[in-house]
C-alpha cells in the first residue's frame, strides 16, 4: 500500500453540463461520507483540456485531485479510461469509488468494477455509512417500485453509480484549495478497440420536459388522440410540459420527444399529473424523482395509483376536462 491515507474517490465525468453537475454533487456527498470515516475526498480526472475541471472540483470541495493529463485522453475512450482507473485504484486503494450514473458512467463503472473484482451498486439514490463503516447504497429496482440497501464490505473499493440530481452540490468557493497529484500516462495501456467515428452534440430538444416543475403525463387510458390533446390545454393552465407513455407514442397521439420512460426521458417535477397510465415499469422508472404525484385511473389497483400521493379513481379524460374548468374558475390571477 503506497497510501496510508483513507480516501473516497469521485470520478470526474465532465463531458456535458449534466455530467459535470453530477460530479460536483458526488464531491459534496462524498465529503459528507468522508467526514464520517475520517477520509479525504479525492476527485480523479482524465483528459487534455482539464484545468477548468481541476479548478472546479477544488472550488466545490475536493481535498485532493488525481490528474492524468494527456492529448491521447482528450476524447472519452472507455477501454483506456477503465484500464487507467483500475490501475490508479489498485495503487492508491480508495475505500470508496463513486461514479455518476450518466450514460457514460453506466457503461464505464461496471467495466472498472469487473477489472477490480469489486461490488458495484447501480444508479443509486441514497448513500450512507453504517456503524461498521460500510458504504450502504440504496438502489432502485422494478422501476423504483422497490428499493434495495446494498453493501459490498469485502470489495476494494466499494463502488456505486449515483443517479444525477440525487445530491446537492456545495456552492462554488474560490478560496478553497486542493492538493494536486499529476500522474504521467502509463505507456503500456491497452489499445482502444472501439473507434469513435463521429460525435455530434445533439441540439437541445425536450430538455424542457426533463426540467419542468410540473408535468402532465398521459397514457392509453385517455381513450383517444382527440382526448389526449386536451392535456395540452391543461398543461398550459398549469405552466406544465406534456409527457406520454410508450403506447401513446406508438399510437402516434404524441411525438417521441414526449416519451417519458426507458428510451425516453426521465423527469423530476415538483408535481406530476398522471392520466390513464397503468404504470408499466418502463414508465415508472423515469418518474421516481417526482415529488408529488396525482394519478387518475379507473383502476384503483394500477401500479401508478399505488405510487401516487393522490389517486383519483375516475375516467382520465373527464377529470382532465373538469380540471381545466376548475382551474379557469379559480386561477383568475
Amino acid at each position, binding site marked *: 500500500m503506497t497510501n496510508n491515507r483513507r480516501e473516497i474517490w469521485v470520478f470526474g465525468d465532465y*463531458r456535458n453540463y449534466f*455530467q459535470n453537475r453530477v460530479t460536483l454533487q458526488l464531491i459534496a456527498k462524498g465529503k459528507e461520507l468522508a467526514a464520517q470515516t475520517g477520509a479525504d475526498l479525492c476527485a480523479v480526472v482524465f483528459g487534455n483540456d482539464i484545468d477548468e475541471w481541476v479548478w472546479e472540483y477544488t472550488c466545490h470541495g475536493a481535498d485532493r485531485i488525481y490528474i492524468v493529463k494527456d492529448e491521447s485522453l482528450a476524447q472519452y475512450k472507455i477501454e483506456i479510461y*477503465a484500464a487507467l482507473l483500475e490501475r490508479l485504484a489498485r495503487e492508491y486503494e480508495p475505500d470508496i469509488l463513486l461514479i455518476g450514473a450518466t*450514460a457514460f458512467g453506466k*457503461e464505464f463503472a*461496471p*467495466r472498472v*468494477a*469487473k*477489472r477490480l473484482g*469489486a*461490488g*458495484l451498486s*447501480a*444508479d443509486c439514490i441514497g448513500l450512507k455509512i453504517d456503524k461498521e463503516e460500510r458504504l*450502504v447504497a440504496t*438502489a*432502485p*429496482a*422494478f*422501476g423504483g*417500485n*422497490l*428499493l*434495495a*440497501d*446494498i453493501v459490498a*464490505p469485502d470489495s476494494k473499493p466499494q463502488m456505486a453509480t449515483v443517479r444525477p440530481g440525487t445530491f446537492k452540490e456545495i456552492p462554488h468557493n474560490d478560496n478553497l484549495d486542493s492538493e494536486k497529484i499529476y500522474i504521467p500516462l502509463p505507456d503500456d495501456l491497452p489499445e482502444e478497440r*472501439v*473507434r*469513435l*467515428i*463521429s*460525435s455530434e*452534440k*445533439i441540439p437541445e430538444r425536450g430538455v424542457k420536459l426533463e426540467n419542468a*416543475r*410540473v408535468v402532465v403525463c398521459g397514457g392509453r387510458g385517455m381513450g383517444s388522440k382527440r382526448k389526449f390533446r386536451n392535456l395540452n390545454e391543461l398543461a398550459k393552465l398549469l*405552466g*406544465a410540459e406534456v409527457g406520454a407513455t410508450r403506447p401513446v407514442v406508438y399510437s402516434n397521439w404524441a411525438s417521441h420527444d414526449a416519451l417519458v420512460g426507458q*428510451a425516453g426521458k426521465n423527469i423530476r417535477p415538483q*408535481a406530476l399529473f398522471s392520466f390513464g397510465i397503468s404504470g*408499466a415499469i*418502463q414508465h415508472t422508472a423515469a418518474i*421516481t424523482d417526482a415529488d408529488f404525484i396525482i394519478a387518475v385511473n379507473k383502476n384503483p*389497483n394500477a*401500479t401508478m395509483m*399505488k*405510487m401516487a*400521493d*393522490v*389517486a*383519483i*379513481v*375516475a375516467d382520465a379524460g373527464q*377529470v382532465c376536462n373538469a*380540471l381545466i*374548468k*376548475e382551474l379557469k374558475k379559480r*386561477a383568475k390571477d
Partner: protein
Amino acid sequence: MKLVVCVKQVPMVSELPWDAKTGTLKREHAEGMMNPACKHALEAAIRIKEKHGGDITVLSMGPSQAEEVLREALGMGADRGVLLTSRRMAGADTLATSYTLACAVRKVCPDFDLILCGAHTSDSETWQVGPQMMEELDVPGVACVEEFELNCNILRMKRESDDFLETLEMELPGLITVSTRHNIPRYVSFAGVENAFDEGQIEVLDVEAIGADPARIGIGGSPTKILSVYSPTAEKKGVLIKGSAKKAVEELFDKFGDLLGGVIGKDLA
C-alpha cells in the same frame, strides 16, 4: 455469422401482485416474461441473420421455468436455446452473472462473431452485465446501441449517449448491448410459439458443464450483498379520491390546492 443472445426472464411488473399490508411485491406469484431489452437484442440478432445468414444461440441463466423465454426466442427465430440452471448459480450479482454467462459462451459458442444483450433489465436495472461480459471475454464492445450496420466483420453502430450522437466502429468478434429504442421485436403468432414449445430443444447446463469456478458463481461469487428490500411507496401520502370527475377535482383542490398553487405559482384556494 455466429450470434449469441443473452436473455433474462423477469417478472411482469404490470401484473405484479402487491401485498397491500407491507407495500411490497409478491415476487413468487409474478408471471414471467422475456425482459423487454433482451427481446430487442434478439430482434437485432434475427435481422442480422436474415441479412447475412448464420445461426443464433440464445442463452439464459435462471430457474427451470426460464425455459419459457428460451422457447419464445425459438418461436421468434433463434436456432438453439441453452439454459444455465443450478441452485448454486442463484443469488448472483452482476459480477458473478457476467462470469457465468461468459463461461457458458466459451463452452457453447466459442467461435462467436457477435454477442447481443439487452442494455438493461426491468427488474434489477443495473445496465452492468453486458459491459462486464465485454471485460470477462476481453472483446471490444459498445453499450446501448440503437442502430447498426455490418460490413464484412466491421460493425458500425449509432447511439445517443449523454447528449451526443455517436457513430462507433469495431471489428468482430465483439459484444453489444441493445436499447429498447430501435429493433422493435416482431410479433410472433401463438401458433409459432406453440410450435417452439412442442418441437424446440433446450439444452440444460449446470456449473460443471460450463466449466465455471464454483467460487465465482452465485451468491458466493458476488461481492454485493443486499441488506434489505423495501417499498418507497410506503412514504407516500396515498390519499384515495372517488366519485364523479367534478367532485373529485373539487376534493383535490380542497385538500391540496395550497400545495399545487405553490408549485404553479397561482392562488388556487
